[in-house]
């Protein structure tokens, strides 16, 4: 008889703990807009993160930040957003009960590939950070570099300088004579 009671108690405890975590997580929700972006290398885009306080109490001193991960095959890695000129973390002083806060993260698309971006909200009163759904970001390579442009200068400039200096030297010699 003791065993079933113990087993049922454990199930009850597990459900209660899970509910507590879920309710804490649902106190705040985060979303990211737009859900999909297709752009070219060098473009400037802006992510808008919406943080919603679903509780009846105000939420104070939360931190929100955007994360970007490269999911291109063979190049999977988190990105250093400093290089992408993205804003760092935003500190939100307070969100009133059932209120929302909108944060903006503009960034310049530095490299091509497939990425995912998401907003994470950290509330020091909760143990679990809250993340938004992922926004897909596809960046198309735009090759601005054209080696053909450099060839006339790479070949022509030393020749032109050489010719100008030779002309000056010849004129000087003639003058001296």
């Amino acid at each position, binding site marked *: 008889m003791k065993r079933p009671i113990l087993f049922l108690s454990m199930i009850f405890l597990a459900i209660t703990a899970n509910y507590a975590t879920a309710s804490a997580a649902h106190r705040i929700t985060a979303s990211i807009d737009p859900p999909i972006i297709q752009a070219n*290398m*060098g473009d400037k885009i802006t992510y808008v993160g919406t943080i919603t306080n679903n509780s009846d109490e105000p939420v104070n001193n939360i931190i929100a930040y955007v994360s970007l991960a490269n999911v291109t095959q063979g190049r999977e890695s988190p990105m250093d957003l*400093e*290089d992408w*000129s993205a804003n760092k973390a935003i500190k939100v002083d307070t969100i009133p009960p059932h209120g929302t806060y909108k944060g903006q993260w503009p960034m*310049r*698309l*530095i*490299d*091509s590939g497939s990425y995912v971006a998401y907003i994470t909200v950290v509330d020091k009163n909760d143990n679990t950070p809250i993340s938004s759904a992922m926004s897909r970001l596809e960046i198309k390579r735009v*090759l*601005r*570099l*054209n*080696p053909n*442009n*450099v*060839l006339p*200068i*790479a*070949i022509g*400039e*030393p020749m032109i*300088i*050489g010719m100008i*200096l*030779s002309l*000056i*030297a010849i004129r*000087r010699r003639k003058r001296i004579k």
Partner: protein
Amino acid sequence: MKAACIMQKEIRESILTPKGSLWYILTSMILSVLSYLFLTNSELSLLDQGQMLYMIMNFITALGVLMGLVFGADAFAGEIERGTLEALFLSPVTKVEIATGKLGAALANWGILFAISLPYLFVVGKGGQNLFVGIAYLAFLGTFLAITSSAFSMGLSSRIKSVKNSLIISFFIFLLAGSPIFLSAAQRGTWFGRIIDFINPFAGAINTFDSVVIDSQGFGYQAGRVATIFGYTLLSLWFLKRSVSRLEM
């Protein structure tokens, strides 16, 4: 006016001679090779393009400083060794005017270098980030550094009166100024690296280029470093004036 005459003489003797002008053809050839190698690499991100621009700017600045030091080392010690300083002193120009003329020639040399580098900077930086602001910073900081290195080396040359020794000391200082290049990012983050970066005008310039071209940071971030470089420029001009006024045959 008299300083302008000295400057013209220096330009004729040091820049417009076949041997003197070889520098420019070599500079142009090195920049050609660098630019071509950079631009034939198709696997580049926008950041890499900024990096290329930054590297070319560093190269041009280093070359400007180096040429300033060489010009300066020869300025007075060279005249003494060739036995031409007496004639210069007998002419109706003051020592400060002579120094100003020689400094003007060294600056003209930097101006030519900068002009040679412009087409390469445009080709490499085209379509990338912060090209024009980068070029503007290169023009200002490069000019300050060219004045600093030339004036310091000229002052040294007038005190030491030996081209060889002036050159050795100048090269030693050039290596010291370029030391941040030899330090890793971690070493530059330590207190020692930070002090070296702060007191070194060359490091100040390359950090500014990095901040402007790659990190797209505004003038507020650069003000301290620009002020330090400008301070060195004033200090080296004072050193030159003081050294030249004491110069005697």
